[in-house]
């Protein structure tokens, strides 16, 4: 069965500092990886997906199949990046989303 692990429950950084959220997965096939974000009092929403190879709000994520990781990075954190971030995996057959435990990011001024 697939599994997603986010080892950090809380990341606290200063504004302008880099931030990296770790995500590791276990799945023997070729999954699709996502990052979802939940800002205060807002719905959980998609931030970015691996297949799109895009940068959203300055965030990027690289899929490393050798290390089975999909870490989320931003070179210069902003206060508005404070939120809960979830890494998620979808396998080709059945497409059920499996989420990690989430990482809360706090960007201090």
């Amino acid at each position, binding site marked *: 069965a697939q599994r997603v692990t986010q080892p950090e429950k809380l990341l606290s950084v200063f504004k302008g500092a880099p931030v990296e959220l770790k995500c590791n997965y276990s799945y023997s096939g070729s999954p699709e990886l996502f990052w979802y974000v939940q800002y205060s009092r807002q719905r959980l929403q*998609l931030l970015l997906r691996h297949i799109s190879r895009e940068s959203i709000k300055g965030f990027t994520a690289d899929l490393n199949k050798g290390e089975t990781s999909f870490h989320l990075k931003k070179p210069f954190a902003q206060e508005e990046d404070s939120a809960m971030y*979830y890494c998620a995996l979808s396998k080709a057959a059945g497409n059920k*989303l499996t989420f*990690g*435990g989430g990482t809360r990011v706090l960007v201090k001024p």
Partner: protein
Amino acid sequence: GAGVSQSPSNKVTEKGKDVELRCDPISGHTALYWYRQSLGQGLEFLIYFQGNSAPDKSGLPSDRFSAERTGGSVSTLTIQRTQQEDSAVYLCASSLARWDTEAFFGQGTRLTVV
């Protein structure tokens, strides 16, 4: 509607009572998920519906929990004989029947069992 709609937004119930939580997915979305988000915790998968396939109930924590999806659209999550540990935000999401597509979430139902 424009997005996934859940009702009620908030529900306070007495321990031992049954509750029903409703989810209206985005029209045309064949995949529907229920998750639970407890205070300070991550997302806990409960159940997954995909088209006409048998639902994946592997995340339901006990037989007090059940869910159905009528006509491939609206879904109801039922919790019988509620316990205080059932207090959480229950989230519903829907998506197209493709593995690489985005899941859209509702605003959630905050359930408080007193």
